[in-house]
């Protein structure tokens, strides 16, 4: 009960933050900044408490609130923590204060509106993660568009209006079909059972024909794939990242992109398990294509922000690969990889923002030899680079390694059974690791070493605020890298739940067949 209250406090603290900012007199930007930071910090502390109290051995929801909201339609206000979202909620709350602190210098115009929008998107993101009711999820999911539209559009770069409209119109298109699909899902569940409910727990049991599942999965998957983004729905991402202010990029890379993969793991696959099983080869193929294609595009960029934007596409491909493996280790690895990417990409975007504030250019060619000019900056940048490419002892290694292990785990028995395609995909995915090391190290080499070129230089090295932000970011990077056991245990029940729902579901025509279905064989092989 106490936990449930705390979770609600965490969810609504951002709204309180907005109220506080609005109450402050205009022009008092210093106080707006410090109060915003304070509220975000309080949110993180409470979330950390919730995380510590989260019991990894309990399957299902913890800290649950369940109240009727639009009772006539079976919509309830139902939020809670489970293995799927607990790490992501912690990540969101952790990045909150860093995002606010990172924008202290960069944002000089309409400061109150800016921090109000940061709080608003924080509210929407947390709500999306903790929502356990399909309509509530959708409402939070769509709400994220409003603050992001304004953050990119008001404080962005030169082509900000094009970028923000592209972002909104892309994501809204996916969502509108998801809305149709979710109405259909709830309605047919009601037809079949007489139970009008939007609660996820009820809908997991919905009995749909394979054709229905296929259509609905396609609608949900389109929406999620745009958000991830998976190739070929990724073209909005580089534009949004490049034009967004640093804060916008950090929020986008840190949390927003995880919405797509979270949607797949929490809703897309478990709601339509039979169709998902059939779609898995395609998902796996798209995931591997995203890994390799994203990495290749990152290799040839000349804009620093674009390199990291394309590397995001590649890194999120691993998440999808882990999910598609349907292997316990792979699924857990996918969740860890989400968190890891959230930390490293957020850190790299923050660092790009810091150098941009000083040198006012994002052209890679303009830079060189920063290691001599800005030694502290370079050390942090190198550590984050290595974490991004998955150096052991960092979180990137844990995520990528587990995902690949899961992919091979699942592919090997299939290979023995005569189906080598998954194994081929897994092997190609490994090449993504090499490509990743290539583009990031090449980037770091040109950026940090060689002849010293500092545009608008000489410039000052990191100040104390910036050092503190980056040092704070590195703590979880190494924590997950060195002691992955603890966070992984928190996700175990969710991974089992996902595996049971998706891999355990039998194809309708296979119900009576003698050999156990493919997925079951995989599960046994994994044990």
């Amino acid at each position: 009960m106490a936990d449930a209250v705390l979770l609600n406090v965490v969810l609504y603290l951002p709204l309180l933050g907005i109220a506080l900012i609005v109450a402050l007199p205009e022009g008092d930007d210093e106080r707006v900044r410090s109060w915003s930071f304070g509220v975000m910090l309080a949110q993180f502390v409470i979330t950390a408490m919730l995380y510590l109290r989260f019991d990894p051995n309990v399957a299902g929801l913890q800290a649950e609130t369940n109240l009727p909201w639009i009772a006539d339609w079976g919509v309830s206000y139902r939020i809670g923590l489970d293995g799927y979202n607990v790490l992501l909620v912690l990540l969101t709350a952790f990045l909150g204060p860093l995002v606010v602190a990172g924008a202290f210098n960069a944002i000089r115009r309409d400061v109150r509106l800016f921090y109000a929008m940061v709080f608003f998107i924080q509210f929407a993101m947390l709500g999306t993660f903790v929502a356990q009711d399909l309509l509530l999820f959708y409402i939070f999911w769509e709400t994220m568009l409003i603050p992001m539209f304004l953050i990119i559009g008001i404080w962005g770069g030169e082509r900000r209006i094009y970028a923000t409209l592209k972002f909104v119109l892309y994501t809204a298109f996916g969502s509108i079909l998801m809305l149709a699909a979710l109405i259909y899902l709830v309605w047919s569940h009601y037809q079949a059972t007489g139970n009008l409910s939007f609660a996820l727990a009820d809908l997991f049991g919905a009995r749909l024909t394979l054709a229905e599942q296929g259509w609905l999965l396609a609608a949900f998957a389109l929406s999620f794939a745009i958000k991830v983004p998976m190739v070929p729905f990724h073209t909005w991402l580089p534009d949004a990242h490049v034009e967004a202010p640093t804060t916008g990029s950090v929020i986008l890379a840190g949390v927003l992109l995880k919405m797509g993969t979270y949607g797949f793991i929490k809703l897309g696959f478990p709601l339509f398990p039979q169709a998902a099983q059939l779609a898995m080869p395609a998902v796996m193929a798209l995931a591997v294509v995203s890994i390799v294609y994203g990495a290749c595009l990152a290799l040839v960029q000349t804009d620093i922000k674009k390199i990291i934007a394309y590397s995001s596409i590649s890194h999120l491909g691993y998440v999808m690969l882990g999910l598609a493996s349907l292997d316990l280790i792979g699924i857990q690895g996918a969740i860890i990889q989400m968190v890891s990417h959230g930390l490293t990409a957020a850190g790299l975007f923050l660092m790009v923002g810091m150098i941009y504030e000083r040198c006012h250019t994002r052209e890679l060619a303009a830079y060189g030899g920063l290691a001599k000019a800005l030694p502290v900056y370079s050390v942090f940048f190198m550590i984050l680079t290595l974490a991004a490419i998955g150096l052991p002892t960092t979180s990137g290694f844990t995520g990528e390694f587990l995902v690949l292990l899961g992919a091979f785990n699942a592919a090997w028995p299939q290979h023995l059974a005569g189906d080598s395609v998954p194994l081929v995909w897994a092997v190609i995915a490994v090449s993504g690791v090499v490509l990743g090391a290539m583009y990031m190290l090449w980037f770091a080499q040109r950026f940090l070493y060689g002849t010293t070129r500092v545009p608008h230089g000489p410039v000052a090295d990191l100040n104390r605020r910036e050092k503190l932000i980056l040092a704070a970011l590195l703590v979880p990077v190494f924590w997950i890298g060195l002691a992955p056991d603890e966070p992984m245990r928190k996700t175990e029940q969710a991974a089992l739940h996902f595996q049971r729902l998706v891999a355990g579901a039998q194809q309708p025509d296979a119900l009576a067949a003698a050999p156990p279905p493919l997925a079951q064989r995989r599960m046994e092989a994994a044990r």
Partner: protein
Amino acid sequence: MNWSVLLVAMAPEILLLAGLVILILIDTFMARPRGLLAVSVAAVIAATVAAAALAVIGYAAAPFPGHFSVDSSAYAAKAIVLVLALPALLLGRDDFRGGPFYSLLLSSMVGTTLILSADSFLTLFLGLELMSIPVYVLVLLAMQRVEATEAALKYLILGGTATAMLLMGVSLLFGYTGSLSLGAFGSLLDTGNPMAQAAVVLILLAFFLKAAIVPFHTWAPDAYEAATVPVTGFMSTVIKAGVLLAAVRLFGVNSLSGRLVELLAILSLASIVWGNLAAIRQTSFRRMIAYSSIAHAGYLFYAFLGDGEGRFEAVAFYALVYGLMNMLAFASLPAAGDDVERDRLENLKGYFQRAPFAALMIAVAMFSLAGIPPLPGFVAKFLIFRNVMEAGYTLYAVLGLVGSYLGIYFYLRVLQYMFMSPAPSGLKPQPQAALALGAIAVCLVPAVILTVYPGGLLRGL
């Protein structure tokens, strides 16, 4: 006749009439009329409270059996249109200095409340005319441009055409059934008789014209642009809500079938798509809202595809939310100066710098009209499409939703002007008039309540 029943049952109408009489007396006998706004606002508030209270206690009566009856949903419908009229009244003072505005608006309101209780086509016709004729005058009343006369004439002629079609349809209906009751219309819906079908189609066309459904929409952009802000607000919210809620009453609980479904779905879809696409090209705020309202009329008529039971709930909720949001946008426009300048969309550039609160209010309204959650416009749209899907028209629901997607862009463009473009030089910050702030509050407070807890109102409807 039982007078006490009559007094209670017709309380909203009687209160409006009382206000109207006082207005006319003040106008006639006072050398310098004062208190017109106060009297009309008081009359509308009293009528709203009466209607809402009677709806909540579930009062039902038929003071004129066969012609006029009330029940809780009729009262709820009346309360909705009356609430929407309030901001229009409050906004009116800056544009209209004289008495005719208030008395015309109030008489139009009497007509609107009348049609929401009509049981026979006689009452319906009376109410529709009483509702429409004052608006023809209102469009011209504060005329500032010559083009306005053309638009008003267009509106008058097409309004007259709608009336003629209604009368033609009703006479066919009378010829076929020998009855003028609204119930007779429902019984015609699934007959194959050509005369009956002609009657149904003609009556429907009259409603399409009044609600500005494609291809009967051409009067709307001109009339909306010609009228001043409060009258445009009144036309796009109160009149539209009144017409649609009357249509719900007309159809009763009958589900549509056969050809009628296709007719309704295709015309609504055409309105949604065309309204949303044409709005993109507009440079005048009111013209843009006109096309937006054509699209919204499409969503509202979509609700008729759904089952009869959920129809009233969906239309009433949608009309209320849509009306509140439209009015919120109108109330937050820059204060009245040069009307033509005020109407230019370009003049909203940099509006956030000049008037942050008003710009935020317009932003709320635009996001809500675009149907983006968590604003109440989303719940309203969800309700309609849920009903369509539950009736089994999955394809129409998907097409309608995709059509609604087309509308997002032009609402976002308003935001882009307000927040992301520098202000044109020469514009000075103008504080919102106190009355406009009142109108904003009237729209905003219910909207916030509907955002946080839509379930409350839905249970009552």
